[in-house]
């Protein structure tokens, strides 16, 4: 009984404080209306006529009103709409079942049985499924990718996803004003943006930006860049392509901390159409509400925790330090501290403030209050960096299994596709028919640096199923139960 009571108390408290302005306004309006209604029509006309204003004062007042309105509307940021987005669906011939991955590992690392054993243990607990994909060049024993293979993969994934975007949004290549591509580990010259400009014959005055080296959170950084540009350039379309090219980055050595990415990273890409055009407000799926970026790079530990380097044999790979989860937790804390006031309802903010004051003044031993982000968002897209990341965030934010389902299932079906994984997750939630108009979505990504970036979207229109996309042929099989350890 006390449990149910406290639940109702909490609900009542939330309702009171979240709707405080409304609750104050209602009695005030009621009193004023009651007073006005008591006056007779003659009295009203007399009181209006008694206000003597000459023409000059009237003109000044009007100009003042116009001036204030103009300043207000000019300083309002342009709304940024997400018209639609597409995700890359890998071809069946890129499929790598667990058994094939392990067999190839054994053959590639035949002189290092301990490293093979390590990879097997990682794979068993990784949360990946049997349908993730690696590019054709990595299927060889041993993989010996050339730059041409890397370009081939880039062309394959980027062109596929951009073609889909054109088909879904009826966008014409000449209507692209801003093009941003982010791909952390493959940065050829000419850049990947030049690749797109060349293939689709974009306009000569298109603004292109190619972001490389920024890790798995670069997808949100690209959206942030697009948003800032769309404030400056009126009436424009921006296309953001997020991908990670696996081919040149397969680690050929046997250093354990550097073998981890081989086990988790898989092929993927996403293309997003953003616009600030007023007419897109009707068909756009989402509206961008906030972007919060947190960079912990000033701390040495954070800076070095995801570090690309050569191993003892001179082979290049990405070293993941053992502190990764701890640093991710700290970065998350910073990010949500900044984000809290922007998205949390008044009730949560008040509680957090009161607890903070209490801890500082009265008793430092009070447990810090973790705001309930489930009140601020309906859907969560946590970057599918690995099972540990999702587990950690689920614990810290006190999320239910359904909230993290999109992340877990994306990790299972597609693996860690780096910056594009957030879009696969959103596509999952849409394909399940769970996104309704007005729903708020929180996308959160971690990446090298160490960075934690968040994006908040609000659903602009109802999204019906089926939606097409990468989950089209398999959404009915999901969610699946993912065992703790898969027996190989």
């Amino acid at each position, binding site marked *: 009984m006390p449990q149910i009571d406290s639940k109702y108390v909490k609900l009542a408290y939330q309702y009171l404080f979240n709707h405080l302005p409304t609750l104050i306004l209602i009695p005030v309006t009621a009193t004023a209306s009651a007073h006005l209604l008591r006056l007779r029509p003659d009295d009203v006309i007399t009181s209006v006529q008694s206000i003597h204003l000459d023409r000059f004062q009237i003109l000044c007042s009007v100009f003042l009103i116009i001036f204030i309105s103009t300043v207000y509307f000019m300083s309002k940021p342009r709304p940024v709409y997400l018209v639609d987005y597409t995700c890359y669906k890998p071809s069946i*011939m890129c499929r790598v*079942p667990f*058994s*094939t991955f392990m*067999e190839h590992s*054994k053959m590639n690392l035949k002189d290092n049985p301990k490293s093979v054993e390590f990879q097997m243990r990682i794979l068993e607990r990784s949360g990946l499924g049997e349908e993730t994909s690696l590019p054709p060049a990595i*299927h060889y024993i041993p993989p010996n990718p050339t730059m041409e293979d890397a370009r081939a993969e880039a062309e394959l994934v980027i062109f596929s996803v951009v073609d889909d975007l054109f088909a879904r949004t009826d966008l014409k290549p000449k209507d692209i004003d801003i093009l941003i591509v982010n791909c952390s580990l493959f940065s050829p010259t000419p850049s990947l943006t030049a690749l797109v400009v060349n293939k689709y014959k974009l306009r000569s005055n298109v603004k292109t930006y190619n972001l490389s080296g920024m890790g798995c959170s670069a997808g949100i950084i690209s959206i942030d860049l697009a948003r800032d540009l769309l404030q400056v350039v009126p009436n424009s379309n921006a296309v953001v392509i997020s991908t990670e090219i696996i081919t040149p980055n397969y680690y050929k050595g046997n250093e354990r901390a550097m073998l981890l990415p081989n086990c988790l990273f898989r092929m993927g890409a996403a293309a997003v159409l953003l616009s600030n055009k007023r007419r897109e407000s009707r068909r756009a799926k989402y509206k961008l509400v906030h972007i919060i970026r947190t960079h912990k790079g000033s701390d040495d530990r954070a800076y070095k925790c995801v570090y690309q380097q050569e191993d003892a044999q001179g082979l290049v790979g990405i070293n993941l330090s053992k502190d990764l989860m701890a640093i991710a937790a700290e970065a998350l804390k910073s990010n949500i501290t900044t984000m809290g006031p922007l998205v949390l309802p008044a009730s949560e903010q008040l509680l957090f403030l009161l607890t903070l004051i209490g801890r500082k003044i009265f008793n430092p031993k009070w447990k810090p209050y973790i705001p309930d982000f489930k009140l601020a968002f309906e859907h969560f897209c946590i970057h599918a960096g690995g099972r540990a990341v999702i587990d950690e965030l689920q614990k810290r934010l006190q999320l239910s299994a359904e909230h993290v389902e999109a992340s877990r299932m994306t990790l299972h079906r597609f693996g860690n596709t780096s910056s594009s994984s957030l879009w696969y997750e959103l596509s999952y939630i849409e394909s399940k028919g769970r996104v309704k108009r007005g729903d708020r979505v929180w996308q959160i990504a971690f990446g090298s640096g160490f960075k934690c970036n968040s994006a908040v979207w609000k659903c602009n229109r109802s999204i019906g199923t089926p939606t097409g996309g990468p989950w089209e042929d398999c959404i009915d099989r999901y969610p699946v139960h993912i065992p703790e350890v898969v027996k190989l």
Partner: protein
Amino acid sequence: MVLSNEESPIYDIKISSVGPGHISGQDAAQELTGMDLAMKLHYIRTVYYFPAQAFEGLTIIDIKETIFNWLDHAYIPCGRFRKSDSGRPYIKCNDCGVRLIEARCNMGLREWLEPRDHDDDDAKHKLLVSSQVLGPDLFYSPPVLMQLTKFKCGGMAVGLSWAHVLGDAFTAASFINLWGQATRKQYPAQPLRMAHYNNEAQNSKSPIREPLSVKRVGPVGDHWAMKNETNMETYSFYASWAELTRLQSSICGDKDKENQQIPPFESLCTIVWQCVAKIKRDSDVKMVTICKKDSGNSFEGVITNKAQRVKVVKTDVPVVELSPIELGLLIMNQAVDETKIIEEVMDSDNELPDFLVYGTNLTFVDLHDAPIYDLNIRGHEPVYVHCGINNVGDEGVVLVFPSREDHCDGVRVSVTLPENYISDVKSMLKKEWSLCSC
């Protein structure tokens, strides 16, 4: 073409794996029958030669895509072996895939297929198919390997290495014929399945006699191969159907007589048995094994070893003293079917013995109606197909498979014997029966 040791004509070798494009096997456990396990030390190696038009315009990516689609419907050979608690091997259908080897050849197809006067002319076909066996790391060994070798002219050789434990040569042929259908976007209604394993032998009453057609070897452990005591060599010759009719009549004599007609395969068995017996004067060849397809049941859509009947023919009289017709009639009428006995011995022995079947006695394998020319890639048939059975015992193997040479249908007979007998057999066949490889 002289196969010098310095430079192999095959270069630019790349190895990868291809498997089912969609989740197919679902980690199901596929049990193996006693006959399957009895054949585990043998491997069927077939090379299909295609003209340039068959694969024209296809990149390796395109070819791999057809294979991924094909293997969705044939996922059992894509699995890997595991052992149950009792130690009995079974297949885990984990979609691991077949090994694919890409290679190039610096010769043209016509030049390659030109027969040369060389004792082991058959060795060239061995370069185009993998000779890898199962084990020693059994759990990570692929039962099926494919090699795609591109010739200078654009022609392509497809080398299929098939572990006999999966099924016989007919099964192997129907397996790869599905790939041909996949290149034409046709797929079977049901995926290939394996014959069901009945554990009947546990109820056997009397002590079973040892089969004469197999030899216990090993223990081989997890390395499913046997080493020969002597080097084996292969000699093959072609005989058109007209030629075979001539041989038949020269064995049987007049058609009008009441004598039973000896069919072509058995005629060839007679001829080769007599030749080998004459050459091996000291160790008379008194017993041979005959392997033929079970003509009764249909095993369509099934990969199995149950369709092959293993028979043994014994003679008390020295073979050299028998006339061809007598020997032929002996083969026809006195063959003892040992298939069931082999299976019973395998199933009743908890230790799961390692058997050598082909080559324990001089073995004749009848593949003359195997559908090897039915592999149709985008509407093109192979110009030539060469079959071989590898890892056989020291007594040798004689394979009879269909062949199409000089626009004429017939059979090719491939004789594998210890190397010191080959040239004698070759000259005797030419002298007494006018059979040669030209």
